[in-house]
Structures are given as C-alpha cells and as structure tokens.
C-alpha cells in the first residue's frame, strides 16, 4: 500500500448497510481483501434502525453483531466510515477510486467512554430516531454502533463548547481541526450497495404527513416500537403521548402509484403486519385497520399474513384511502371507500401510519460513475458478464432483508469473477 494503492484483488464495497456488510464479509471470507466505505458514522444502515425483522420478529442487531464480529476478526477487511466515493477511473480489474472523507472530529483512539457527551451542552436532532428526539452534539450514533466511536456534530465546531468537549477527553481523541479529505485506492471490482431511503411521505399531500398530527411513516413507527427509540418502546402518539391503541396502516403510500413510485416496494405490507403485531402485544385492546390494495406476502411470508388475518382485532380493509384529515376531535381521520362493501368511510384513529415505500438512495454516490440504471433509478444487475461494477441489495431493486443478503452474496461472487477476469487479461 506504499503507493496508495491496494492490489487489483481488492474489492471495494460502497455502503455499509446489510447488503454492503454481507457482501464484505462474504467476499473477505472467500479470501479477498475488501474495503468497505460508508458515508454515515456507523455501519448498519437502515436495518440498524429497525426494531425487529419480519416474519420471525427477531432483532436485526443479532445478525449485525455476528457480522461485526466477522469483520473485527478478519484482517482482510478495512472499514472507512464517513467516507464516500468521489471519482472512479479505470476498468474491470483495475479501478482507481477517489474516496472523500467527512470530518468526524473524533479520532480512532476514542474509547467510547462518553465523557465528551457529558461535556456537550447543545443538542441536535437525533438522526438515529429520524429526528423524533434529541441527542447531544457529541454523540454515539447508537448503542450498537460499529465502530463504537463518538461523533461531534459540525454545528458546535468553533464554539467554546467544542473546546470544553475536547478538554473532557482523557485520551486526546477529539480533533477539532479534523477536515474533509480525500484519498485514492486501487481496486479490481466495486460493489454498489448504496441502499434506499424512505419515500418522502409529505409528497403524498392528501395523506397529511407533516400537516395532520399523529400521521407518521413506517420507519418512524419502527423507532417508536424500539426499546432504544425515542419513547423507549412505548407506542404512543407524537402529539400528546397518548397510547396508540386504535391505529390505521395505509399501504402503498407512494408505491404502486405512477405519480410517486410506480413499482411495488415489496416490504411495506409485511412491515405493517409486523407493526400490527407490535401493537397487539403492547395493548391487549388494540384495534388495527390495515388499508391495502393487495397484501403482498409472497412465499413463506404468507404464514405471517394468515396469522394476523386470523386475529379479530386486526382488520384488513381493501381500499386505498382518498385522504387523511384532522377530524373534529383532533384525531387523524382516514377517508375513503371500502371497495368490498362500497361503504364510504371516515374513520378516526389515535395514530395513522403511512406504509411508505423505498426509493433508491439519492446520496449521489456513483453519480459520476456510468452505472446502468433502470427508469426507477435501480442499478440493473449484470448477469454473466461481470463488468466490475456490481449492484447489491436495494440499490438493485426493492428487496427485503433476506433477498438483500442473497443479492449481496451473489454480488460478492460477481466481484470475484470480475477479478478473475481482470487477472486473465
């Protein structure tokens, strides 16, 4: 690495969510050097923000823990957080990639003791909880963050508070002079695992997200249900903290809609079923209405659907609601037509959850790179002709976790094939 380059046998993985992590460990354990870059301060991506996975209702951090252990023990893996891809030059087997780093203001010798957070006074919106609560300006992204290392928010840099934070660190890990930087590496193949973002629910104006109180989206619901979320796992309404017992889920909020996301986002039906299970467990008298067009519980997930369908307190209403408004009592009210009964309804709830879909991440990584994308922005997976640019996970299409891992494992193989091809040249 003296010339700043890694060997052409190195694989670059862009994005440290479940797909990127999986691609990384799978390729590394197959004997290849892997550089994993993630633009945020911690690995884990969207799944780290999930409370539980469907259909087993187990915790994502369990699988992440295993993968982190695999990374920690494997010297063939290098992880760069707060790093994103700038320019890519070269060809299969021999790419030169410039990587841009953002300042973390905390050095690698951070022991995660938390003294800096103790010294910090100002608070920022907590990105881990989608801004539903606050965190200190010197913070650990979350308890299962990897690397387990603090971050200082740029907003305090240059203030006396920053100096106070620096002074609190007994191992001199705070670096207030930390700057943006960039460096180059040479790699043989690149796996793009840049993931997704929740579709902006405020764009579906008739559903009142951001306007009508207690209308939230599905990723926020996930945080509300999480023990390490803003409410310590109590599912309550954001407006007044009241227990959310009568709850509506609106499927296809954005998905399957030519004005928003024309494709089906695949995960939202199961996501709402999972949320219904959270509620049913938390409140014995919870009443849940799920408004849907088609319940898309494919393959084995069907069993989970049947389980909820058998629950008399979970109602499935085949209807795409027309609008969500503030009702007379102040509760969110869902209006529409029940397509089976032809009844025009206006139902009030404690909480309405929009099952918003996934769209390919707009972080712009790889935007300078000529990746073949479909009309929705997903990177088209290459089959049998490894070109050294490989998509994994939701970057390649709307997939659930299991399919993302499947896609990432396949991507690891494609990267190996690309390297083999490069070596054959």
């Amino acid at each position, binding site marked *: 690495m003296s010339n700043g380059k890694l060997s052409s046998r190195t694989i670059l993985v862009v994005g440290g969510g479940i797909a990127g992590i999986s691609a990384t460990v799978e390729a590394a354990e197959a004997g290849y050097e892997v550089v994993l870059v993630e633009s945020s301060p911690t690995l884990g991506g969207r799944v780290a923000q999930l409370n539980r996975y469907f259909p087993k209702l187990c915790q994502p951090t369990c699988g992440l823990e295993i993968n982190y252990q695999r990374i920690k023990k494997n010297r063939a893996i290098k992880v760069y957080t707060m790093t994103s891809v700038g320019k890519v030059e070269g060809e299969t087997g021999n790419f030169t990639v410039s990587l841009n780093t953002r300042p973390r203001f905390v050095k690698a010798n951070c022991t995660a003791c938390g003294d800096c957070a103790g010294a910090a006074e100002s608070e920022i919106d907590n990105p881990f909880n989608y801004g539903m609560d606050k965190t200190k300006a010197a913070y650990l992204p979350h308890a299962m963050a990897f690397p387990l290392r603090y971050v200082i928010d740029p907003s305090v840099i240059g203030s006396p508070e920053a100096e106070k934070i620096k002074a609190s660190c007994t191992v001199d890990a705070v670096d207030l002079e930390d700057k943006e930087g960039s460096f180059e590496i040479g790699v043989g193949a690149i796996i793009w695992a840049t993931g997704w973002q929740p579709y902006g629910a405020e764009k579906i*104006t*008739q559903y009142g997200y951001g306007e009508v109180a207690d209308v939230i989206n599905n990723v926020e619901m996930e945080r509300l249900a999480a023990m390490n979320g803003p409410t310590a796992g109590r599912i309550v309404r954001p407006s007044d903290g009241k227990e959310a017992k009568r709850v509506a889920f609106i499927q296809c909020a954005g998905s399957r809609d030519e004005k928003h996301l024309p494709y089906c986002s695949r995960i939202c039906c199961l996501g709402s079923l999972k949320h219904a299970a959270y509620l049913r467990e938390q409140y014995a008298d919870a009443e849940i209405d799920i408004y849907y067009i088609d319940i898309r519980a494919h393959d084995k997930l069907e069993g989970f659907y049947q389980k909820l369908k058998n629950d008399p307190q979970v109602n499935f209403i085949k209807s795409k609601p027309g*609008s969500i*408004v*503030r009702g007379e009592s102040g509760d969110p009210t869902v209006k529409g037509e029940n397509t089976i009964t032809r009844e025009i309804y206006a139902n009030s709830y404690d909480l309405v959850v929009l099952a918003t879909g996934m769209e390919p991440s707009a972080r712009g990584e790889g935007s300078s790179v000529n990746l073949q994308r479909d009309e929705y922005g997903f990177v088209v997976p290459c089959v049998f002709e490894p070109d050294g640019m490989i998509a994994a996970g939701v970057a390649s299409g709307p997939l659930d976790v299991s399919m993302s891992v499947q896609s990432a494992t396949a991507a690891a193989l494609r990267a190996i094939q690309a390297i083999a091809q490069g070596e054959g040249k």
Partner: protein
Amino acid sequence: MSKSYTYYPGCTSRSSSMHLEKSLRAIAPKLGMELNEIEDWNCCGTSVGHIAEGRLPNAALSARNLALAKDRGEDDVVTACAACFIHTHDANEQIREDEGFKADLNEALAEAGQAYDGSLLVRHVCEVMVKDVGVDAIKAQVTNPLTGLKVAGWTGCQTVRPFAATERGGMFDDFDDPKFMRDFIEACGAEAVEFANNTSCCGGSVAVISPQKSLQLMKTILDEAKEREADCVATPCPLCQQNLEMYQDLINKEFGTDFQIPVVFYSQLMAVAFGLNPLTDAALNQQMIPATKLVEMGTK
C-alpha cells in the same frame, strides 16, 4: 418590463364574475402583464355543454378561440376562469396529441377559413403570476398592506386540477395542497388562516342543477372559515365565488346558520393592497355580501 399575453376572458367576465375581470384588469399593469383580448372570442363550451351535441362540436368552440388566438402571434393564451382554463387547455392538449381529432376539428374550422395546429399553450393567470411575475414582484407593488385582515384562502378544485402539477400545466402547485393562495394573501400583507378545505369542491355546476346536493359541501367550507375567524374567503375561481356567495342565504335557511362571510377574488385583495380604489378598481361594490372590512382598509 411588461409582457404581453393573449387573453381569453370567458363569458362570466361579462356577467357573474365581472368583478374578477375588473380587478384583474386593474392590477395587471402593475404586475407587468399586458392582457390582449382575443378578438370576437366565443364561449368555451365548458361544463355540461358536451352532453348536448357531443365532444367534437363542443371542442370546436375552443378550437375557434384558439385559432383566433393563434392569429395574434403570441405563444400563450391566458385565462382567469378555472372552467375556461380546464376546458380550453384540455381541448388544446387533445388537438396537440390526437392527430385524428385535430384533423376533424380543422375540417370544421375550414368552414370559416380557419385552422389551428395545437401549438399554443393555454395558461391560468395564477400560474402566470406565480411563474412569470413571481410572488416577490406582487409583494413589491403593495403600498397598502392588508395588515390584520384574516383571509381564508380557498383555491377550489379546478384551478389546480387536473393540470397544475403537470408539465404543460406549468408545475406551479400541488393538486391537493396548493400554496399559491396563501402566498398571494401573505404578499398582500394579510393573514392567511389555516384552511384545510383549501381545495374542497363547492359542487360546481351540480350546484345549479341540484343545489341540495352541494349545500353541505359549501357549508363545510363556510364552517371552517368561521371557525378560523376569517374576515373573508378569497378564491381564484368564478364558479366558487358565485356559488359560495349566492347560496349563503339558502345555506342559512337550510341549516339554521347565520353566515355572512364575504367571498372575494385574490385580484380584489391585490387591488386594495396595491392602493387602488376599493370600489371601482377592486370592484368590491359588486359583492353581494359586502366585504366591509376590506373596503374600509382601502378607503383609509
């Protein structure tokens, strides 16, 4: 800098919404809009006109207007009436996209020695104000800010639907929660009250045929305006203005309410805010329910 637009006033500009026409004419120069009326324009055939003779004869009405407009040589046709806008815009788009339809209409137009190829763009005057003029330019003309006036901005449906958020409709606002009325009201220095019924329908032409079906729709709008303590309702739509103003007595009778809420056009607000005469320029003398507070603000 003034820009010249081909202007289609529509039938109601001569009758029920004469006050829209008057106030618009008064503010247009201040906003740099030169409105040049299509010579010898005819009715656009909106609403239920197609039922009588069919789609093609109905569209022929618009086609004649557009052919006459085309002769003026400008690219855009601007109208202030929501119904005229939808109808003419729609006919125009169909002529542009449907070759057979275009040929049929031109065959009819040829009877009067006219022709039209679909090349104009039909625009709503509010879109022009948002996109070409800009809210800042409106604000810049305000000499008499309507401070303290609480206005319920009610966009109605047709001004933003179905075209506002389309490429050809100018992408100027949202279908369900448009903001431009709020912007206009605030530009005039008035307070735009929260108004959830922003795009609620008044019942449109169904109100004429069977008012009973529409009264409840209108009452909902008035209820909210009253709840929000609005001094008046402001709208861009002639039919909305007329229905809501005209049927208030009937609503009061039907539901035992006591609404006396003035319903004005955004252009009337602007005229007053621009320091023009509230009665003649803003044509507030033509309100059936007097907009007393607004008139007073203009006479100070």
